[in-house]
């Protein structure tokens, strides 16, 4: 993430000092930044350095200190202790953590540090994914939040939300619940079937298990374990990492980043293989057996008829449709029940799901299916009805603030 963040700030016109354990590593990282920016000249704005030789000088002269160390609270805290010593009084300190407690990271630091400290959660790769969460903790100065929001919006082109300092913040909390739920279903239904049934036609750029492979099984584990340990809500059990994933991670199976070990998928010279969770072995991928209602939805998305497509999902009688509805409605229920907990408004959750994950915003699903229908469906599947949906149904109101031009891209044909 350090490379992506350096590219983002340099492209926004900032002078960046990029620090790594060794200066050579920072120099290598700058070459990566040039690749992301597709421009050699971006290096004119980036200076390499090492923590040992350059930290004090770089931090004391910085307007913003952006930390992108590993997701390890102790490591981050010891780093911030040093930052606290060197930083200029007005400088902002941000962590890119994807879900650790912001308040705990700031604990023990000076009052000035605590007031100027917050989370800036970028999604990978940040030069492509513009959704971003700003996470203040209780002591963050509101003026600091305002400054950060302004620079991220205006200079760095972010689609921003303010998320609460809760486990996994807003986007990861909602998305990884659904992804882990699908991962839990794998032993019963298999990889190919699930990624087909809960595929892009259900309002996501990428199928859920392929997404877990992309982000990495270890990252997935860290996020769901963090929520499972630190949060209690109606979906608690759905954050429990499946046993086969725990075993796979122990064997080095981390997804796309470990091509030899694979993930749910393994790419070989012969083609793509699929994980069989019962044996831990891979077998040749077979195309999923087409399901009529899924194919019908894809055709409707292709011509931009998203409302009609969701009507097909709502009324499909196939046995598989129940499973698809349960997962999609589970997403709507979980996301909108977090309003007031992980973010102030449904609009914030909509934004981060749309621009952080390329998933259809939950409010859009409510509007397209109709709030009254959603209430009835949620009850049918024994899912918790969010108060905001109940109100929308009672008042016959739309929940989503944008238009089809904002959400159309999240429905893939």
């Amino acid at each position, binding site marked *: 993430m350090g490379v992506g963040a350096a*590219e983002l700030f*340099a*492209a926004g016109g900032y002078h960046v000092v990029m620090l790594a354990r060794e200066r050579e590593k920072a120099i290598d990282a700058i070459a990566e930044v*040039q690749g992301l*920016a*597709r*421009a*050699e*000249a*971006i290096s*004119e704005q980036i200076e390499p350095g090492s923590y040992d030789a350059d930290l004090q000088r770089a931090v004391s002269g910085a307007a913003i200190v952006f930390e992108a160390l590993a997701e390890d609270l102790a490591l981050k805290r010891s780093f911030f202790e040093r930052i606290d010593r060197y930083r200029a009084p007005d400088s902002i300190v941000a962590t890119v953590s994807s879900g650790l407690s912001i308040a705990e990271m700031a604990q023990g630091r000076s009052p000035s540090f605590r007031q100027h400290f917050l989370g800036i959660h970028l999604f990978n790769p940040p*030069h492509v994914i*513009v959704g971003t969460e700003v996470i203040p903790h209780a002591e963050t100065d509101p003026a600091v939040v305002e400054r950060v929001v302004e620079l991220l919006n*205006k*200079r760095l*082109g972010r689609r921003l939300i303010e998320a609460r300092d809760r486990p996994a913040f807003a986007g990861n909390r909602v998305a990884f619940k659904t992804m882990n739920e699908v991962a839990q279903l794998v032993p019963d239904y298999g990889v190919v079937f699930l990624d087909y049934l809960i595929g*892009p036609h259900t309002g996501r750029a990428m199928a859920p298990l392929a997404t877990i492979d992309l982000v990495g099984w270890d990252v997935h584990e860290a996020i769901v374990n963090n929520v499972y340990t630190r949060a209690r809500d109606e979906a608690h059990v759905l954050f429990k990492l499946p046993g086969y994933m725990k075993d796979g991670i122990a064997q080095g199976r981390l997804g796309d980043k470990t091509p030899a070990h694979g993930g749910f998928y393994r790419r070989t010279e012969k083609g793509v293989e699929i994980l069989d969770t019962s044996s831990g072995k891979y077998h040749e991928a077979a195309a999923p057996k087409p399901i009529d209602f899924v194919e019908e939805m*894809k055709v409707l*998305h*292709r*011509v*931009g*008829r998203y409302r009609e497509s969701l009507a097909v999902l709502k009324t499909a009688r196939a046995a598989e449709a129940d499973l698809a509805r349960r997962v999609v409605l589970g997403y709507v229920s979980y996301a909108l029940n977090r309003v007031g907990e992980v973010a102030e408004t449904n609009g914030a959750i909509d934004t981060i799901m749309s621009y952080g994950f390329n998933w259809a915003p939950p409010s859009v699903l409510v509007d397209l299916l109709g709030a009254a229908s959603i209430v009835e469906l949620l009850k049918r599947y024994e899912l918790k009805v969010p108060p905001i949906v109940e109100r929308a149904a009672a008042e016959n109101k739309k929940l989503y603030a944008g*238009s*089809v*031009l904002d959400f*159309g*891209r999240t*429905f*893939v*044909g």
Partner: protein
Amino acid sequence: MSQPPVFILGGAQTDFSRNWSKENKHIVALMREAMLGALETTGMEPREVQTAHVGNFAAELYAHQGHLGAFVIDVDPALSGIPTSRHEAACASGSIAILAASAEIEAGRYDLAAVIGVEQMKTVDPATGGDFLGTAAWYEREAKGIEFPFPKLFGRLGDEYDKRYGLRDEHLAHIAAVNYSNARRNPLAQTRNWYMSESHASRQSRYNAVIGGRIKASDCSQVTDGAVAIFLASEKYAREYAKRSRVALDKIPRILGWGHRTAPVEFDTKMDESRDNPYVLPHTRRAILDAFARAGVSLEQISGIETHDCFTTSEYMAIDHFGITKPGESWKAVEEGVIEMGGAFPINPSGGLIGAGHPVGATGVRQMLDAFRQVTEAAGDYQVEAARKIATLNIGGSGTTSCAFVIGS
């Protein structure tokens, strides 16, 4: 002869950074989203639309789909039966659709027209797309068997300036940097999050390869997918619309003037024809002057310009052709910051084709929507201060079809 006024009621644009092929979408989805967005933005009902015109360059090639006018009907059942048509003039297709729609309103045939500009281009690889674009030139003579013919043709436009007046590539690099910088403030611009600097644009490098002649990647507008829909109205309809929208009629922008000229297709013929003319593309100059004359305005009354910068050389040409400098002295406006936000004649506050993106058939309509946004103070972070009148220039081919408009209230 004074023509009845044509009002612009607003519209909507798709995000030009989207790749609709990756979304596995048919071109009709682009048209639907733009049109539904325009209906929502303006608060109009589909049943109110009386006629529709589509600007599109080459859907038959890029998307294997013709008869695009008919696809407007697919947006809503209430549109079934309205007259529709599709217009093509290469990169000026969108402006030609606007001209056709406004002519119908001026003639009193209809009171409310939808104009949709659309192009889906990311369906093919860059070389194939470059070949398709070659059909906007005289294909057999200027494009057949040539890789990326258009950068080469517009490189030659730069060469012609160089020959007649002298041209320094650093000025082209500055034009690129200004457009990218403006695009960063436009939430619908294709390149809004791309890195660009004058230093990068000035040098040929691995990431800034020469595409043709003196044209490097940074000098080029980008291939993209996009659709834009706007509504044009007669005074009768605009009056009703103003009443129900609770705005004064004189606050609703109108097309104050238009110009439309066509030069010979072949680039060499154009250059031969203009050999003794101070303007390299005299028909383009005339299209601009026609628009100014019909609007009854002079350049000094123009608050900003949305021009056709398919390449930096075409914007360089536009600067002197608009009369911002004497012929051949566009570099002065570049050096003095005249064309930048805050300058005397900001060019492409949206980022233009280089920054905002160039889905060919949508571009002319996008320019008019951006002009509408400017004069209604609705351009957000790329608003030109106190914009009253905005001029547009949309070009098809190598300076072949030129369409200019003046928009204001």
